[in-house]
């Protein structure tokens, strides 16, 4: 009984208590990832934001996600672009690794990242973190753009008495809403109380924390005659690339944790002293006792990653056969490691490339076409 209560407290944001939690091995809620494919073939200039409320692409969402999205008009667009951002970033960060973040839109409701997300390895940890972070980032961004009209307005880090409205003390901080929205939207799917669930929750939160902690502080002096007698500061979001970079660093230094430790123990202790009932504080024991406990920014995993050398239909990974590798590198992108010792073939080819381009700040690239002889190495 006590366990149940604690669990409910942990899931306060998702108010899962009202429902009997069904045991879903493959998180059905991650289907929202497939929003990334919405409008993929022809990315047309989109209609005004107001029309996005009745965007038909709500299908992959769970009931509660749909409710959340309908409650926050415009957020579906942000979620959609968040999903795209996450995939793009994942592919970018892993382009030189054996596992290069393959995605597959099969339209059958399977996860677009393949079955790897059902495993508890580093790669799945990264996927959970980056997608959750992308939603937080994208929603915050959309708030700043004015795309979501329901972003919160809390101005102070503490609770002020009611009536201190916009006119009295203004509005600020879009990042907080992004974080809260992502937590509600992403964590909602992770029903259950097994170890995998706890790990995923932790990694989701880790992703979001990287967004919130990556805020940059800017200040402007505007006192009398522009002096610094009055200085106003604010926090602004960094680019999602930076979030991706830091998550990739955490991926490399991810902590392997001992299964069976579902983090509940720490939670019980936490709720025991009356505090932390609102906070989900998960605590995992690292597999290597010499390692320190994973912090809230660290990614955690409990299964070894496959080698990703051979094609694995189950995981939706094609193996490294045919992948291009770096002939001179001794790192993971080098041909030795990438091709798993199977060797590689080298071919010379003639490529027609754009060159001597003239760029402007956004677009309008005026280029010449050059033909160059190139060499590439491909894994056997």
């Amino acid at each position, binding site marked *: 009984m006590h366990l149940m209560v604690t669990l409910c407290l942990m899931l306060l944001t998702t108010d899962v208590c009202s429902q009997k939690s069904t045991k879903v091995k493959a998180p059905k809620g991650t289907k929202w990832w497939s929003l990334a494919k919405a409008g993929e073939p022809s*990315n*047309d*200039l*989109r209609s*005004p*934001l*107001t029309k996005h409320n009745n965007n038909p692409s709500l299908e992959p969402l769970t009931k509660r996600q749909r409710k959340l999205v309908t409650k926050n008009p415009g957020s579906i667009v942000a979620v959609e*672009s968040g999903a795209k951002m996450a995939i793009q970033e994942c592919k*970018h960060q892993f382009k030189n690794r054996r596992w290069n973040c393959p995605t597959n839109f099969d339209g059958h409701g399977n996860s677009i990242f393949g079955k790897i997300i059902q495993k508890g390895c580093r790669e799945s940890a990264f996927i959970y973190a980056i997608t959750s972070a992308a939603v937080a980032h994208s929603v915050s*961004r959309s*708030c*700043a*753009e*004015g*795309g979501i*009209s*329901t*972003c*919160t*307005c809390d101005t*102070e*880090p*503490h*609770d002020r008495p009611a009536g*201190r409205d916009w*006119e*009295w*003390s*203004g*509005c*600020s901080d*879009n990042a907080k809403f992004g974080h809260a929205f992502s937590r509600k939207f992403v964590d909602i799917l992770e029903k259950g109380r097994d170890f995998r669930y706890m790990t995923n929750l932790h990694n989701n939160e880790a992703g979001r924390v990287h967004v919130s902690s990556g805020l*940059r502080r*800017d200040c*402007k002096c*505007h006192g*009398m*005659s522009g002096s*610094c*007698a*009055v*200085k*106003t*500061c*604010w*926090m*602004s979001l*960094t*680019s999602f*690339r*930076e979030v991706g*970079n830091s998550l990739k660093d955490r991926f490399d230094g991810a902590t392997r944790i001992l299964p069976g430790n579902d983090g509940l123990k720490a939670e019980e202790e936490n709720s025991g002293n009356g505090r932390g009932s609102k906070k989900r504080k998960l605590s995992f024991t690292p597999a290597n006792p010499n390692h320190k406990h994973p912090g809230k920014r660290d990614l955690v995993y409990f299964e070894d990653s496959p080698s990703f050398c051979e094609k694995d239909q189950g995981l939706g990974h094609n193996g490294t056969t045919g992948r291009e590798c770096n002939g001179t590198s001794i790192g993971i992108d080098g041909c030795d490691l990438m091709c798993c010792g199977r060797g590689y073939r080298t071919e010379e080819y003639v490529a027609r490339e754009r060159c001597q*381009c003239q*760029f*402007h*700040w*956004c*677009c*309008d*690239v005026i280029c010449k076409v050059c033909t160059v002889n190139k060499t590439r190495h491909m894994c056997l």
Partner: protein
Amino acid sequence: MAGVVLETLSNKKLLILSFSLAIILTVFFLIGGIVAPSPNSVMDTLTVKCYDKDNGWHLNNMKPFTPRGKDSCKYIDSFNDEEIELKKIDANEIVFSQLLPLPKEGIDLDMSRWFQNLIAVMDVNVEYDEDNPYPENNKPEMLIEAKLFYRDKEDDESDWKLLAESSEQRTLDCTIEPERRRKGNLYTCELISLFELGSVHYDYYLINIRLPIDPRNTMNRIGKLADMHVIAIFQNGGFTKVWFSMKTVLFPMVLVVLVWFWRRVQTQGRSTNLTERTIFALGIILSIMNCPIEWLTLAVNMPYMMLLNDIRDGAFYAMLLSFWIIFVGEHMMDQVDRNRLMAYWKHLTVVILGCLALFIFEMCERGRQLVNPFFSIWSSEIGGAAAFGFIITAGIAACIYFLFLCYLVFRVFRNISLKRTSLLHMSTLRRKYYSGLIFRFKFLMIVTLLCAALTVIFFIIGQLSEGQWKWGDIDVSLEYTSAFLTGVYGMWNVYVIAILCLYAPSHKKFTTETDDTDTNSREEEVQLTQLPSEASTLTSFITKQSAD
């Protein structure tokens, strides 16, 4: 002997007065800290990249680009979209647009007249890209074509009226650490000032910005732009309300004390002396500063209010500086007769010079902004140098002033110590006269130093702290910046009120002093009539007596 109220006041009364003034001061500080919100709010907005398909801007089509609402523009999500290439979208066809304020909590917010002023800065996000590099060795020039529209709540949603438009040149200054030089990472760029409005008279503001590219020049060659943020800073309505109320309360208070002071001076039946006139002028200028004409901004559009407030503040500080010089000079206790403004021309020139430099700078920046809100003196090289020159001049003037003041104070203290030794050998009248003078001077010195020190300390704490203080676990938090502003404002008001009260001529001793005067010799009276300014009350009294 006649002096000022301060000398005739009993210690008990003085203590009560000081105590009550200290309480008033604390109240001001707490009003700012607890009642008022932070002085300013920030809206960090991301501009929407509107696609100006028909090149309407270029054709001088006045139609504004709105980021949302009924007539919102066609927009691009990111410059990485394939459609840019597909549709051959040109940099000249992009208009960055944002509508202030952003909607929040599902409510369509609007700007309030209580906000008083609106400052907008641009945060340009430049991405690192080897193919399209940011010119790191020379800071690139930007040409910003900006338009600012306004609309009121009652107006039709597409009825935007032009408030200002301008083409401005700014320099972009970005840096990136070597280890972060990877594609997609952002440069750290200096903020670029966009516009400053001296009044927030309308409900909605629409910003349209274009960064035109011309193959004939090197404008806007800034590398790869990812996003453009426009950050709007405005005074919080709550702070404005507290500030207005404070001014409204202080204005009549100071005025009453001022009238009392002047009537007291007038009833002395002699010509006024320089110290009295200076104190009176200080009171008048404080009253001008206190005068809450800001209330009018709620009804009338007064974009010059910000400039006017700066001038009023500046005038007060100039007067305060002049007052200190004159007061110290008049308490010199040497046998030189000053009592004229001309005697202080050297010192006052320095004050006026410094203030004039700041005034010209202010007029160049904020004065010019009345005509063109996008103007910034710092954006052009000559303007920046001139502005720097003015500030340097003001700084030098401030230094010279400080040296003058220190020198004068030093001389007064030397004279005091000289007088101390001979004080015992003096007659009662003389002794009382000098000890009164010394007491008055020392009192003002202490109070002034205390006020100045408090201002400086508060300011430093404000710079160091994050602007928010929390006291323990109880939910009492202190909005420090607001407390600093209201506290300092209240403090100088209290300071002037105290001076007006305590340095008003006293008529109390007329009755008590009569016993003392009979011991004075004729010779001494003659000497005393030649005493400098401060003795004028005394002199007049003595001459009156001798006439009797």
